[in-house]
Structures are given as C-alpha cells and as structure tokens.
C-alpha cells in the first residue's frame, strides 16, 4: 500500500530526513520509533501529503502522493481537535468539509460515536474531556471519513500509562474491525512493539537505522507475555546503539 523510495525532506536548507525507504502492505501496521527530533513527524506528514519530498517518491496504492489523500486519516498528539467546536462538531468536521448531506452525516457520526462509546460526550468541548476521551474523539473524527490508512503522530504520549494501554487495545480492535492500515509514530518502546507489525527505527541523523519484524503483534494480552519484554529490550538496545555511534 505505501511505498516510499529514497525519500529526502528539507525545511528550507535543513535536511530533516533522508534515504528513507519504507514499504507497508495493505491491512498491516508499522510503528516508527526514534529519538525526539529525528524526523518522525516529518516522515509522517510527508506520507499525509502535507510536506513535499525534496528527493525520492512516495506512492500510496501505486499513486504518487501530491497532496492530502481522501482516504488517509491523520491523528495528531494534541492539536487535532478544535477547542471552539463541541465533540459533535469536531467529529462531523471531516464529513462537513466533504459536503456530505446532513442526514447521512448525522447517521454516520452517531453510529461511530456509539461504537466508540462516547455518544454521551456529544455536547462537551475538548477542554472538558480527559486525555483518553480526547483521543477517542480524535479517532472518531478520523473514522467518520472511512479511511483505509491511519497515520498517527504520537497520539497517546500525553496519556497516563493505564489510559494509554486501554486506548492502544482499543485501537487494535478498531484496526481489526475496519480493515485498516496503520502507520504510527512514537517514542515509546512498548507502544512501538504493541502496535507495530513492522518496526522502523530511526537514527538521530534522520535516516532509518533498522527495520525489525514483530511476530508478536496482534495479541491484545501481549503485555503479560515474556516475549513482549524481551522484544522491548531488544528494541531498547538498538535505539541505544545509535547514541554511541553518532
């Protein structure tokens, strides 16, 4: 589904990421992990069509990504929801922008709010929500437009550990039910292992240092298993290696 070939992205003169190769098949997930400032968000925004490649190409379903793609949903860490809109207004925004008629919009949004168990938050404003609730709403908003690809930029990093695990499991469920393809950026090792079928590890220099396959992916009780912790440790080691070499 996603094919990134030798991608380089610059901010004016500054090269944020380079030599990026990434391939992700339909209905699979990948997590991208790396130290803060290594270019994870830059990579994700390029996949979303918001930032343009300086060199190299990005293809999704064999079409070059030139601007935002209708079936790509982007979820950001903090600023995704608009504070001046209620939960309901936020959730229908994507549909409204696509000029979906009122009736259809009403039905779609209500069914998703119910499915995500946040229908009672309908009339609240983002400032009245807890971190976990906000993220559910953000996910709901993205799902209304029925994406086949979800891009997430550290979506859970402001949540406490328990809420985070809850919502990670929840995401796994959504993934299974909706035939999604997910690409998730994180700096959290456990999250990368829990949600990534393939794990891309980035170096400080803005390149991909290593790609590992994660055979344990998909088990929502993974955290209780020993494999999970050895996988995390393995990942931790690879991440640390970079620090001494750079």
């Amino acid at each position, binding site marked *: 589904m996603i094919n990134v070939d030798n991608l380089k992205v610059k901010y004016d003169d500054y090269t944020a990421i380079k030599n990026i190769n990434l391939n992700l098949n339909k209905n699979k997930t990948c997590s991208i992990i790396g130290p803060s400032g290594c270019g994870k968000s830059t990579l994700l925004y390029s996949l979303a069509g*918001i930032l343009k490649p300086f060199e190299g190409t990005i293809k999704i379903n064999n079409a070059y990504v030139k601007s935002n793609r209708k079936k790509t949903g982007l979820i950001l860490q903090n600023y995704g929801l608009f504070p001046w*809109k209620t939960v309901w207004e936020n959730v229908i925004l994507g549909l409204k922008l696509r000029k979906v008629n009122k009736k259809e919009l009403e039905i779609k949004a209500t069914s998703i709010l119910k499915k995500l168990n946040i229908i009672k938050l309908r009339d609240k*404003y983002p400032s009245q929500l807890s971190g976990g609730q906000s993220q559910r709403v953000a996910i709901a908003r993205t799902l209304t437009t029925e994406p086949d690809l979800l891009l997430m930029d550290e979506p859970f990093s402001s949540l406490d550990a328990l809420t985070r695990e809850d919502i990670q499991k929840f995401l796994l469920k959504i993934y299974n039910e909706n035939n999604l393809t997910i690409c998730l950026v994180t700096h959290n090792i456990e999250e990368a292992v829990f949600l990534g079928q393939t794990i891309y590890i980035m170096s400080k220099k803005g390149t991909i240092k290593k790609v590992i396959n994660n055979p344990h992916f998909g088990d929502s009780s993974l955290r209780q298993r020993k494999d999970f912790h050895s996988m995390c440790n393995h990942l931790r080691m690879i991440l640390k290696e970079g620090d001494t070499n750079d």
Partner: protein
Amino acid sequence: MIKNKSLYSSIIVIIFWYLLYLVIDIKVIPSPIDTIIEFFKLLKGKLIIHLSYSIFRIFLALIISLILGISLGIFLGLNKKYDEFISPIIYLLYPIPKISFLPVLMIIFGLGNLSKIILITLIILFQILVTTKDSIKELKKEHFYSINSMGANNIQIYKHLIFPAILPKLLTALRISIATSIAVLFFAENFATTYGIGYFIMDSWIRVNYIQMFSGILAISILGLFIYKSIDLIERKYCRWITLENNNEYFT
C-alpha cells in the same frame, strides 16, 4: 439573570443620581425623572439626529477597522517574513494616544466627518490588528495540518479554523477600543461640527440647559450599553468554549 443585572445596575445609578440631586440642590444636577422625560421628548426631535451622526461615525469607523484590521492581522499572522518588517512599526505607533493626531487629521482631511471617522478608525484598527495577529500566531502548525489533512479548501480553513480562533480576542479588543473611541468622539465632536452627541452635550451646557445636557449624557450611556450588550451576545453565542476554559482554570 443577565437582563436583571443591567436593570439592577441602572436602578442603583439612578438612585445615586437622585440622592445627588437632593443633596446638591443646584441646577447643575437635574432630577433624573425630569431628565428621562426630557430625554424621550428630545429623542423624537433633535437628539435622535445628533445621536445618528455619532452612531454613523462610530459604525463606519468600526466597519473600516474590522475589515482592515482583520485582513492585515491575518496576513501578518500567517506571513512571518512581512510581520518582521511591519510589526516594529505597528508597535511604535500603537501606544501613541491617537487623539493627538486630531489637529493633523483635520488639516489633511478637513474639518468634517472624514477626519473624525479616521481618528476613531485609527483607535479601533490598532487594537484589532494587534490582537488578530496575536491570535493567529498562537495557532499551532498542527492545527493547520489537521484541517489540511481533511482536505479543507481555503474558505473552509477560514471558516473552521481562522475566524473562530480570532473571535474571542477580537471581541475583547472591541470592548476596549469602543470605550476609548466613544470618549474620543465626544471630544472630536466639539470641533467644527454642529452635529453629533458630543456637540449636543457641550452646546446644551453653554446654553445652561442642564436637563438637556443630561439627556445627552443619558443617550451616550445608552449607546455604549447597547454596543457592549451586542458584544456580550455574540460572545455568549459563539465563544462558549472560552468561558468554559476560563472556568476550568478556576477549578483546577
């Protein structure tokens, strides 16, 4: 509840006024009741004409400043390069009491309406410009990414992101600048005009007609109150999220 607040404060003011009238037994302070009766009588005649002139000047200035201030504010907020050049100039001019430009404006733009409208425009414009620019700068690039990723076109970005973001501060700016502009207009209407509520009040004073003078003062307060109430109404309708956020701050 809110309506009662206005009523309650009006009653308090009238009671104070009445007490002053009783205690200070000279003509300078007329009875509030006589004044209110006179006010309604005058309103049918010349007072409404004077008031219309003032309202016309303020609203025209308001509209010009809103259009110029918001568009320039958004432009500078979104374009850092230009902002770097233009902001220092704005901040240099911002604190100058604009009324000190009145003589210059009257020489350049004549003694009539134009110079008065430009003066008030200057006062409101700067407030709106500066706060609009600041509100835009407070937006994070993630806000724009978020709405871009949903495929919004430019009009939709203004409707769903930019305008809602600037509205709360815009209303605050209006509150501050309209109070100043009414005061300044009052002053400016004493020069080279025979129309306007400022002229009406000072003219009544010169004629030693204190009841009429107070009717004018009453008119100017009602005008101010009307504008404030309109701003409140817009705020309550469109900026509920701001009041909620402020309330949350008290609780947490």
